[in-house]
């Protein structure tokens, strides 16, 4: 009998737990440890943040789902992993610490939101907002609706949305948020009362941390830069890319751009995505030494089977991890945002002042789900006495980004961007790194329908309802 412990119940952890339970016999035990009692469908937080979706619609209780599937659930935070002694030290919300032993461990703890990485950033500092978790999205909504009240009184407000750290990722979520603000204000008849501004660390508009996308359109090869420029032109959104936000104060951001120039931008309301780091869990060896620096990269993401340490210009598609197994402990895997990428896809830039500005690669819900499945099936392989046989790197994985531009099913829209592979492979596709036959970009109401369908479909899947495994990750 084997005991598999999954840390985290997001896209990656939930997918892994469901596949483990599906594939393993009843003699094997599956336990999920997660700090929160609920699953949150994070992509819909862009709607919560503008008050267009009730927060409850993005969540469900985990315990009944796990009970139905015969999965143990411990609501607690993992604090330490002891890989030699094969246990996780967890802490409940009452502060009680216990050891949970395992035979196999999957780390799917997602991101640590590193607000401290930028002085004054985030809702705790009180200067800017975030929509990266349900609590933040609710605070963002309340603050945004305050601004709406001011606009209703005839005041003009400045709204700033973007990336709050030189190395931040999740440009797509910020893009959805800014365009949803535009649509919401338009629907309220208040659009002329706001200046809406985009500030990001991307090398170009539409880079999205993916090095930009190229697709065939109207008989040409169009870049995502033109695609997003067109969107911003349509919506009158001001933009500034190649910019690192270094400090946030009440009503003001301080930034540095690619040229090494410093500047300030004023705002009344700001939603700025923080840097993502690995969740702060210590790795402790049998002698009690902290081996976190060996197990993780400097940002705290768990090292897996990637070819780490190469400079950006030398990185190849084949360097990206495929099995997500720790090189140090074969019974430990990482899935979703928790694994360490080998580098960025977007071109990094260092300013003359030494500031590194890089749009980090987003690890989307789709990628996290696919990796969750790969990892679960590899654990099943090992339990069956085999080597991990399931391999899927981000350079072999498609991405379908349906970016909401307005929620309404009648007059909303979404930008539907489908691409393959997620990480460009210039050996297979020398021109653009991606297969242009599989890649497309378009805007329309169909995207809004699709986005809403995905919301319902993925919550259905994550609940493990009948037929869940037929729905692709």
């Amino acid at each position, binding site marked *: 009998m084997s005991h598999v412990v999954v840390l985290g119940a997001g896209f990656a952890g939930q997918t892994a737990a469901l596949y483990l339970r599906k594939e393993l016999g009843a003699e094997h035990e599956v336990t999920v440890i997660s700090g929160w009692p609920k699953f949150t469908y994070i992509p819909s937080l862009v709607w919560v943040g503008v008050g267009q979706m009730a927060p409850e619609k993005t969540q469900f209780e985990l315990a009944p789902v796990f009970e139905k599937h015969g999965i143990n659930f411990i609501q607690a935070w993992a604090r330490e992993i002891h890989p030699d002694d094969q246990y996780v030290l967890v802490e409940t919300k009452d502060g009680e610490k216990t050891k949970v032993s395992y035979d196999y461990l999957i780390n799917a703890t997602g991101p640590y939101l590193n607000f401290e990485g930028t002085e004054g950033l985030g809702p705790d500092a009180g200067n800017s907002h975030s929509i990266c978790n349900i609590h933040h999205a609710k605070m963002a909504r309340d603050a945004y609706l305050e601004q709406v009240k001011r606009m209703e009184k005839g005041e003009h407000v400045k709204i700033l949305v973007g990336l709050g750290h030189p190395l931040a990722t999740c440009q797509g979520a910020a893009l959805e948020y800014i365009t949803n603000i535009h649509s919401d204000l338009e629907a309220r008849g208040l659009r002329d009362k706001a200046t809406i501004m985009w500030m990001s660390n991307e090398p170009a508009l539409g880079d999205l941390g993916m090095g930009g996308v190229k697709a065939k359109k109207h008989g040409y090869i169009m870049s995502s830069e*033109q695609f997003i420029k067109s969107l911003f*032109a349509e919506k009158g959104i*001001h*933009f500034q890319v190649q910019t690192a936000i270094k400090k946030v104060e009440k009503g003001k951001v301080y930034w540095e751009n690619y040229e090494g120039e410093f500047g300030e931008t004023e705002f009344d309301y700001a939603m700025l995505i923080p840097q993502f780091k690995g969740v702060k869990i210590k790795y402790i060896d049998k002698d009690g030494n902290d081996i976190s620096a060996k197990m993780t990269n400097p940002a705290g993401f768990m090292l897996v089977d990637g070819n780490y340490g190469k400079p950006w210009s030398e990185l190849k598609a084949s360097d990206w991890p495929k099995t997500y197994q720790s090189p140090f402990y074969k019974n430990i895997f990482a899935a979703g945002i928790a694994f360490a990428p080998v580098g960025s896809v977007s071109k990094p830039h260092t300013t003359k002042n030494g500031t590194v500005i890089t749009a980090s690669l987003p690890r989307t819900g789709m990628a996290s789900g696919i990796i969750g499945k790969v990892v679960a099936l590899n654990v099943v392989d090992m339990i069956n006495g085999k080597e991990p046989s399931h391999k899927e790197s981000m350079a072999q994985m498609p991405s379908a980004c349906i970016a909401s531009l307005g929620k309404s099913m009648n007059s909303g829209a979404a930008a539907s961007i*489908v691409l393959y592979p997620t990480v460009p492979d210039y050996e297979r596709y020398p021109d653009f790194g991606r297969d242009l036959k599989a890649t497309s970009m378009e805007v329309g109401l*169909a995207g809004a329908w699709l986005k809403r369908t995905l919301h319902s479909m993925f919550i259905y899947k994550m609940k493990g309802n009948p037929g869940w495994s037929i729905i692709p990750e």
Partner: protein
Amino acid sequence: MQVTKEMAPTKRTLFTRQFKLYQLLRLATIGIKILKVVKFPPKSN
């Protein structure tokens, strides 16, 4: 900060983006495209 009018969509484009019959067709097309790339990713160039 810059704001541009370059690449702004024409009225016709804006109309087709909201024209429900056409969008129904696009929904099917995008759906099939996604399913195809997920289930049968390109194997070689």
